[in-house]
């Protein structure tokens, strides 16, 4: 190393960094140790993460866990179950029925993408997938509303069942909108909050409308 003796760094340039010397062969094994764990552990870890986020949506407090560790499993499960439950609607002709599976899917995902783009274009600081994650998870109350509506419709489809469904859907719509704005509103510039919240309101309104107007055959 004699050549390096000539190298000198002037005092006023801050030198930063970390030098860690790998200690033996422990760390490579620790990094890849998830390969050796039983499959049940792997699946349960992801399921627990999804479940934790569901709980966050049901009790929307400002927490960064939902934002930080985003995942799209929950939104996918919710979207597919909602679209499946919206099937079997009545149709006189094929043209007049409720939304098809693909239409529900496209509305939810395309709508979430457009809202995310909108908030980013307005100067929001949230990342693309974090926003998709929040919007997707906040569909949970509306999926619960759809489940309740289907159960109520099994009992009958008169005026009383309509009123029950209306109340449930309106309540869940409010819950979804409030939950998603609780998570998303902070990342927006303060004088544009209403501009960002309104499309979210429209998005959940359209989904609520699809749920409310579902009539079985």
């Amino acid at each position: 190393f004699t050549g390096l003796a000539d190298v000198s760094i002037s005092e006023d340039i801050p030198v930063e960094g970390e030098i860690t010397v790998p200690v033996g062969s422990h760390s490579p094994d620790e990094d890849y140790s998830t390969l050796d764990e039983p499959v049940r552990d792997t699946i349960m870890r992801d399921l627990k993460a999804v479940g934790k986020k569901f709980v966050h949506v049901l009790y929307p407090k400002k927490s960064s866990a939902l934002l930080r560790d985003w995942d799209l499993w929950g939104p996918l499960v919710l979207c597919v179950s909602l679209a499946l439950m919206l099937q079997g609607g009545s149709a006189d002709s094929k043209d007049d029925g409720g939304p098809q599976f693909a239409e529900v899917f496209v509305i939810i995902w395309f709508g979430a993408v457009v809202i995310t783009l909108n908030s980013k274009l307005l100067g929001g600081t949230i990342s693309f997938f974090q926003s998709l994650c929040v919007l997707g998870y906040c569909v949970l109350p509306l999926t619960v509303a759809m489940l309740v509506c289907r159960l109520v419709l099994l009992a009958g489809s008169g005026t009383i069942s309509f009123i029950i469904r209306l109340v449930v859907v309106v309540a869940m719509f409010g819950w979804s909108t409030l939950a998603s704005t609780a998570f998303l509103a902070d990342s927006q510039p303060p004088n544009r909050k209403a501009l960002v919240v309104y499309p979210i309101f429209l998005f959940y309104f359209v989904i609520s409308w699809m749920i409310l107007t579902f009539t079985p055959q």
Partner: protein
Amino acid sequence: IASLVMYLFSEFDDAANLLAANPDATTISIDEPVEIPKNQRSRLQEPGREEDDELLGTDDSDKTELLAGQKKSAPFWTFEYYQTFFDVDTYQVLDRIKGSVFPVPGKNFVRLYIRSNPDLYGPFWICATLVFTIAVSGNLSNFFIHLGKPTYHYVPEFRKVSIAATTIYAYAWLVPLALWGFLMWRNSKVMNIVSYSFLEIVCVYGYSLFIYIPTAILWIIPQKVVRWVLVMFSLCLSGSVLVMTFWPAVRDDNRRIALATVGTIVLLHALLSVGCLAYFFDAPELDFPAPIIPAHNGTTVITKSQ
């Protein structure tokens, strides 16, 4: 050229002195000192002036020209370029909506509200809201009209959403494109005072569609008279915004072409509203349910019917 320079420097001088010195200029009390001198100049001088002024920059447009240059300098493949079209605050969007619903006679929507900061937020979300409002209101209105009938089975008519979306977005984007192309073509033939960029035209059209949102909600009322009154009312309001915006752009052209252009604008606007009313809202069959009361003493009682 000397008088042009003089008028340029007039912006920085005391306006009262200048107007007093110039016997041709008429003084009127003004809310916005920048707007009126421009309009006055365009009325008093030959048409080339205002374009020169706009090119060289008067007080207000000077700043905005510079700012516009700085704002939109990002290349079109970066995200920042598209962010410049969403550079509006909540109060600005609300002001623009207000301006489209309450047209002030004599004030140009583009000059007053847009001021070389056209945004795409308003047009896009107003169109989206309008699409869903028309679809939902149409569905509700049909439901109420057919409610009592025993053979009626409610359907959500979801297909109509995609039809509504295609129609309204096509109107809000293709008509401005055609209009912009037409104005550019006329500009090459006749020196027009006022010329609009494509985004400003899209902006005006987008915001002028706002009045149809409450109109569509009120169209749920199943009375023909009410619906047609609403059509006329909303057409007058938003049509006047469009006419006041585009009349200055064509008024120096051949009289017939100017009138034909403005007439086409209003006609397309009317076609959109009447078409939406006809397609999404079923006709109410009776204006008033008219029970004929059987008379006991031979005279017939005639109740209201249309």
